[in-house]
């Protein structure tokens, strides 16, 4: 034993070489096994998220459409009024973009920054396209096309939008903006929207999470302590909703909860109500449908945790003189917390990003943040704002996650 433990020097270096070789093979195998997942995550998750974060701060539309003007505006000392040279650079850029039919991109971008920005640019583009030669005064030509060019505020807004980076979208996502003196101020109330939407998103998610916990915990306890055959049947009932399309389940709630739906007809038949209750296309419908859809994600981790708790703990507590209720509260319940923590976290984070269900069964006042992200992505092509709202959701989720994991103890969270 001792003789084998102290080999000669050359043996020792050989041993080390062999060990390194054996370790290398194992490492390569490990990398080979992880690589497919890693590449998949890279292309389906990390790169798209990175791109989204980039879009929230990148401001390239003006800079690409009017490159010379954008470069010039970045150098501009905003205390001075724009001079003829600046009008000339901008005018030539607008003329060029109008002839290349790219002016609409810049028009859309300027429209986010100032009211009537689109028509301002489109008017100017139409006017300048007709030019055959350089006008004697670009200033007069532009102001003739649209008098807004004579206003310094227009120029400041244009300078703000000429990139390459901007905080415009991120500020908008939290209802802030820059005023003409470049200070960050609150947006006027009628233009503020997203903080309220964020608060609503969190409120709906918390409500749904609490309801899922209240409904899910007793059911999980029953399933975990039921005999195997009955537990199997109950598990199928728990999983059945997961195997059904989300869309089908959501539409089914519309059928059930509408004014002429089964629930209202039953309540009226029993005589509890005279007129149908408004159960769908409002907050009630959103909460009911989301609770139903997310319930399995609460139940499954709790069942998994409960199943790992041997029944002897409660028996031991009772044998030590604790009333069964006390034994449950002081001995059983604390041991289910990892599952409860995992379930609430899972449900809450999934609820934060919910889109389909609130869109289908909610009213206009029940739309969550994801709806606005989808709106700006698919309908108004405002990718910058969509990305900024995505960042807002991501940051809110991260903050809530860390607050929660601090509260529950991160090692307490056990998924599955």
């Amino acid at each position, binding site marked *: 034993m001792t003789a084998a433990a102290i080999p000669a020097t050359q043996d020792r270096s050989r041993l080390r070489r062999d060990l390194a070789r054996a370790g290398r093979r194992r490492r390569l195998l490990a990398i080979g096994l992880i690589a497919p997942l890693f590449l998949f995550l890279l292309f389906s998750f990390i790169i798209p998220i990175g791109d989204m974060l980039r879009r929230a701060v990148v401001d390239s539309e003006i800079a690409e459409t009017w490159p010379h003007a954008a470069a010039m505006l970045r150098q501009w000392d905003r205390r001075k009024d724009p001079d003829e040279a600046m009008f000339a650079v901008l005018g030539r850029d607008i003329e060029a973009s109008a002839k290349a039919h790219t002016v609409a991109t810049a028009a859309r971008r300027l429209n986010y920054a100032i009211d009537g920005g689109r028509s301002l640019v489109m008017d100017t583009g139409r006017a300048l396209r007709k030019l055959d030669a350089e006008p004697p005064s670009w200033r007069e030509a532009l102001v003739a096309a649209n008098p807004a060019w004579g206003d310094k505020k227009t120029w400041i807004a244009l300078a703000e939008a000429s990139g390459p980076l901007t905080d415009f979208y991120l500020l908008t996502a939290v209802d802030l903006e820059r005023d003409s003196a470049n200070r960050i101020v609150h947006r006027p109330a009628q233009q503020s929207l997203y903080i309220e939407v964020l608060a609503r998103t969190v409120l709906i998610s918390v409500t749904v999470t609490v309801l899922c916990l209240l409904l899910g915990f007793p059911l999980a306890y029953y399933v975990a302590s039921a005999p195997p055959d009955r537990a199997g049947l109950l598990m199928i009932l728990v999983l059945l909703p997961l195997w059904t399309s989300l869309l089908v389940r959501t539409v089914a709630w519309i059928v059930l909860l509408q004014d002429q739906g089964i629930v209202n007809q039953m309540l009226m038949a029993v005589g509890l109500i005279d007129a149908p209750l408004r159960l769908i296309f409002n907050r009630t419908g959103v909460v009911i449908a989301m609770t139903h859809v997310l319930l399995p994600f609460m139940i499954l981790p709790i069942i998994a945790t409960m199943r790992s708790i041997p029944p002897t703990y409660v028996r031991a507590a009772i044998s*030590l003189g604790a009333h069964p209720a006390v034994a449950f509260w002081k001995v059983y319940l604390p041991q289910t917390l990892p599952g409860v923590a995992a379930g609430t976290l899972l449900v809450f984070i999934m609820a934060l990003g919910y889109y389909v269900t609130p869109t289908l069964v909610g009213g206009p006042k029940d739309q969550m943040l994801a709806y606005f992200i989808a709106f700006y992505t698919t309908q108004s092509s405002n990718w910058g704002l969509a990305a900024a709202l995505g960042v807002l959701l991501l940051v809110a989720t991260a903050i809530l996650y860390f607050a929660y994991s601090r509260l529950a103890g991160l090692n307490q969270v056990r998924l599955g």
Partner: protein
Amino acid sequence: MPDGSRLNAISPLADEPRDAGRHADAGAVRFEGVEKTYDGETLVVHDLDLDIAAGEFLTLLGPSGSGKTTTLMMLAGFEVPTRGTISVGGRDITRVPPHKRGIGMVFQNYALFPHMSVAENLAFPLGVRGIGKPERKSRVTNALEMVRMEDFGARMPGQLSGGQQQRVALARALIFEPTLVLMDEPLGALDKQLREHMQYEIKDLHRRLGVTVIYVTHDQTEALTMSDRVAVFNHGRVQQVAPPRDIYERPQTAFVAQFIGENNRITAKIEKLAGAQAIAVTRSGQRILCEPAAEAKAGEDVLVSIRPEALSVASPGTGGENALPATVSNVIYHGDHIRLTVAAGSGEEFVVKAPTRQAEHATIGTNVEIVWNARDARALPI
């Protein structure tokens, strides 16, 4: 000294049993006609009558499914008998809920609450009894001292070894000073050496505290070394209740003889009863002088059971109460003893466990005579 501070009164090394000042029968247990069925068809426990004296160490021994654990659970209150009554200290507790029985219990997997420290685990039974903080603290200290775990109060159960966890579980079952403690295979999860050590510690605690202990195990060695009496269970029936020595040397049924220790079994028919002894005839016509169990009658088929160490190997022609010519067919050396397999002329095979020095001359093929005393051959009803 009030009853409630009993543990404080004894030092960890005190030798005196400490039930002075308490009702003498406080820990006595009586099962009367107890039956238990789960499905309404088969009885897990048959008509059980069992009296356990206060301060006794009784072991319920049997294979799994023999009803020993169900019996323990009925006493603890986690199972309700379908018939019969159970009383502790003269009080009928058949319908008393388990948390009001005041019976200490130690579980096989220790069942220490994983989210509480060792001290919190020990304080738990005191807390639910409404005992104030200062007294709780001093009793926890004493209990830790009792199991020699003074420095471990702040540890979590997960940070303790199996043996340490078992000590804490013991202390927790004793800290509220029950008169009766139940142990459900408490050493089942420990390795052999630790198990033997803990057997000694449990025995020592029992002797010092004078509580009644009812101990469930399927390990016969454990049952023999620890108990005052052993109750052997099979198929829901008590086969025999007796001190370890009687269980091993004077089994009453074939099951007991077979379940505990090794034995050589010969099927025979009792020819004649003569006082405490009997003559049995084997199938090959060999007459054996043996001692019948209480129930054996003349003309009955019996199983004659002889322990391997009760047989000895002698040179042919030695003779004695019982002697059988045989040939050695196998020899296994075990250090302190030698295990011989011998084939008797009648066709039966015997295992002989002989001290190494006595059996040195026996090699494979040697002709020998195996001899034994009549009182070592038990004739048991089949």
